[in-house]
């Protein structure tokens, strides 16, 4: 039987150089055990957790010990970033570089990994899918640096459906090496000079809050309605094609079911109509539901909480409450402007 310890237990107090090497080895094990949301504790994560604990036992003057420490890392590829991370102790993340940078063989290996682990949401060729953004764009909302990408793939992105490596129930968990290969692939697939979005963003904004009436249901940067999804970030989370499709035929994407990896974000704006025991009919969107209960918002943004067996009827529809904006309602040019506005907001 082993006592389970926290990182703090192991790293309290002054650390002498001689203690350091043994404890570093120990830390590798402890870190993995203590990473709360991480299935495969990455090297980077270990260092960050270690760093954050404020109890760095190795310091610039103990360079010899670092070397020993690095020797314990079995995968030689991760040593370079680790060394960098150690050298620049106050800015660990920014100094990380992909050891496979511009290596076409690694990029090819990364493509295989991408298909297995990422394509389910991000699409083949990383050009975006119904759930994941187009990753061929140079600008990525959650960071463009190698370290950002590594962090986002390893740990997931809080508040989004992007799961931590190995936790999405699809595919396999990746090693650090494989994550770097994926990053090499993404760099190779990246469109170097993305076409500037055509369209007039300023006019798009006017339409959004004015004639097109988008803001009666959608919020951007804190202003707008609540019935539909907040669109502040949608420009970077979805492809342009997907945005256009969502406006022209909003019910299309509702046909996508939920998978385990997206389950915690159950809100998918499914249309629901219930009849209460006293005969009142309420129409709105599903906020969440399970076998026995339903949480919904009606078109006046009132939240209702129902036990299903007490309702007279529940009707769900994959027809979105959002009207389909056909070209007679919103011309192609105007739609381009609205998309340009959403893209401009999302890249702020």
């Amino acid at each position: 039987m082993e006592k389970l310890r926290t990182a703090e237990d192991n790293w309290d107090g002054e650390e002498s150089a001689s203690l350091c090497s043994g404890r570093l080895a120990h830390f590798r094990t402890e870190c993995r055990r203590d990473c709360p949301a991480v299935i495969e504790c990455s090297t980077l994560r270990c260092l960050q957790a270690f760093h954050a604990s404020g109890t760095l036992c190795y310091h610039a003057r103990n360079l010899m010990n670092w070397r020993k420490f690095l020797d314990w890392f079995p995968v030689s590829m991760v040593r370079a970033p680790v060394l960098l991370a150690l050298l620049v102790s106050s800015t660990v993340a920014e100094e990380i570089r992909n050891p496979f940078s511009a290596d076409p063989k690694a990029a090819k290996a990364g493509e295989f990994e991408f298909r297995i682990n990422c394509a389910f949401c991000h699409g083949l060729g990383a050009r975006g899918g119904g759930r994941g953004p187009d990753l061929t764009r140079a600008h990525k909302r959650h960071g463009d640096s190698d370290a950002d990408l590594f962090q986002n793939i390893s740990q997931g992105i809080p508040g989004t459906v992007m799961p931590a490596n190995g936790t999405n129930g699809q595919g396999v968990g990746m090693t650090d090496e494989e994550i770097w290969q994926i990053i090499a692939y993404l760099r190779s697939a990246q469109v170097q000079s993305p076409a500037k979005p055509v369209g007039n963003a300023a006019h798009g904004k006017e339409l959004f809050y004015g004639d097109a009436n988008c803001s009666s249901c959608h919020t951007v940067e804190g202003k707008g309605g609540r019935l539909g999804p907040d669109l502040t970030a949608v420009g970077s989370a979805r492809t342009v094609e997907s945005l256009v499709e969502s406006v022209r035929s909003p019910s299309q994407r509702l046909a996508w079911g939920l998978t385990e990896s997206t389950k915690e974000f159950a809100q998918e704006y499914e249309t629901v109509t219930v009849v209460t025991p006293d005969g009142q009919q309420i129409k709105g969107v599903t906020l969440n539901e399970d076998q026995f209960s339903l949480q919904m918002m009606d078109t006046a943004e009132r939240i209702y909480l129902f036990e299903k067996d007490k309702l007279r009827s529940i009707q769900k529809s994959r027809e979105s409450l959002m009207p389909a904006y056909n070209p007679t309602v919103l011309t192609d040019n105007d739609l381009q402007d609205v998309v340009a506005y959403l893209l401009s907001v999302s890249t702020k």
Partner: protein
Amino acid sequence: MSASIMNNLPGILLIIVGVLTLETHAQVTFERLLNSSKEPQNWLTYSGDYAGHRFSPLDQVNTANARSLTAKWVYQTAATGKFETTPLVADGILYATAQDNRAFALDARTGRPIWLYQHQLPSDIRPCCGRVNRGLAILRDKVFLGTLDAHVIALDAKTGNVIWDVAAVDYKQGYSFTLAPLVVKNLVILGVSGGEYGIRGFIDAYDADTGRRKWRFYTVPGPGEPGHDTWEGESWKIGGAPAWITGVYDPGTNQLFWPTGNPSPSNRGEGRAGDNLYSNSLLALDADTGKLNWYFQFTKHDEHDWDATQVPIMIDSSDKHLIAQANRNGFFYLLDRTTGKLLSANAYDRTTWSDSKDAEGRPVPNQQSSPTPEGRTVCPGALGATNWMSPSFDSRTGLFYVTAREQCDIFSTAPQPYEVGHAYYGSAYFPSDKAEPYWGALRAIDPTSGQVKWEFRHLSPTWSGVLSTAGGLLFTGDAEGNFIALDALSGKPLWHFQMGGAVYASPMAFAVDGKQFVAIAAGSSLYAFGLP
């Protein structure tokens, strides 16, 4: 000794036993495993018995009182990821595993821990589908654990101390153990995981006292062995065919019936022309030697990752010795387990990959099901019509209960070189654009006719298995976190409890001090329910 004392002896013994519970525990002999139905208060093997029924003879909780079920205790593992364990209970103590190769023993009445163990895993293990484990096996005073770095470990059931620890194989090539071992006689039997890494699968038996390996059956035959010619060139070396779910045991014939998984790479048949034996098969093995008596291959030359790793269920009716499996490929198979002959195969889920059967009655794939580079929609999807979550069989209702998933996927294939220890799928898969939302159901199948008698529809596909009990009840969980009791005859829900975390486990039942409990893992917690 006078006659009156003799007459009172049972009563006196009862009192003594009540006090000395902990002294008498921990000798779970093979005879007790064989006769597990005689001690319904205990749950001594992964499926509750050797036949794979996942049926509890307890009836204190029944259709009349299920509505008053309530949570009795919750044990939190503080671990993350999928919590897939089925606990064992022996004489008041519950033994289970959790993520990252934790194992623990609890006071089964209160959920209070007696010991905790965690195996120290290297940082470069390669479990395909989460850092999961499905449970322990028990024999005498030891419990047995298979680990994600492919070790087999015996722990002292009273302390959690390691008695022996052996490495079965080099984990760096992609091997791991995720299943609960099965104890037969003095052997600890396990099948390996790693079908996503181009392993060569096997089933192992270890001496329970020493950890010495007594036999190994390779699920991919080597040169000169029967079945070797079902592999193209050298593809057998990385042919997969893992065996990652606990099989069943027939004491009458001393045979193990153990299912196997997909050939590697899972979604690309090019380069491994042939049937690819013994992938996606049911194997009848001599329990003492591991010698193959017969096999039945459900999906030949699989290209959809349709592992046959679903617990098979032995069914005896009059003079017939049968074995049934609701397969991941969407068909329910009934076999004669004396010969391995197929008796019937019927779809219990939406299947688009087969519209004809071969001479033996085995469904065969159609032209439109093979993955292409552009992708093809096939039902069931990659995760299957069902998966590893346990089915259940209640001999009183005569029904086979299985968790079904209604999900189609687009299967796309791409050439991929094999690299040791790296994921090896040769594919990608996606939800179909035109697909209806995924959903799931608990289905009751009449094994004789293969017909679905009723279904209880789940809002979304669940990874929960099913338990049936002598109280006329079924228990299952859902992806939204509900634990649900249903009438085993009609499928009508009678009770539910929202546990706050998705279920990736199969329920079990036990009793302590005459009180029945039903337990299930959900989220990061193990829940035990009982009557107020």
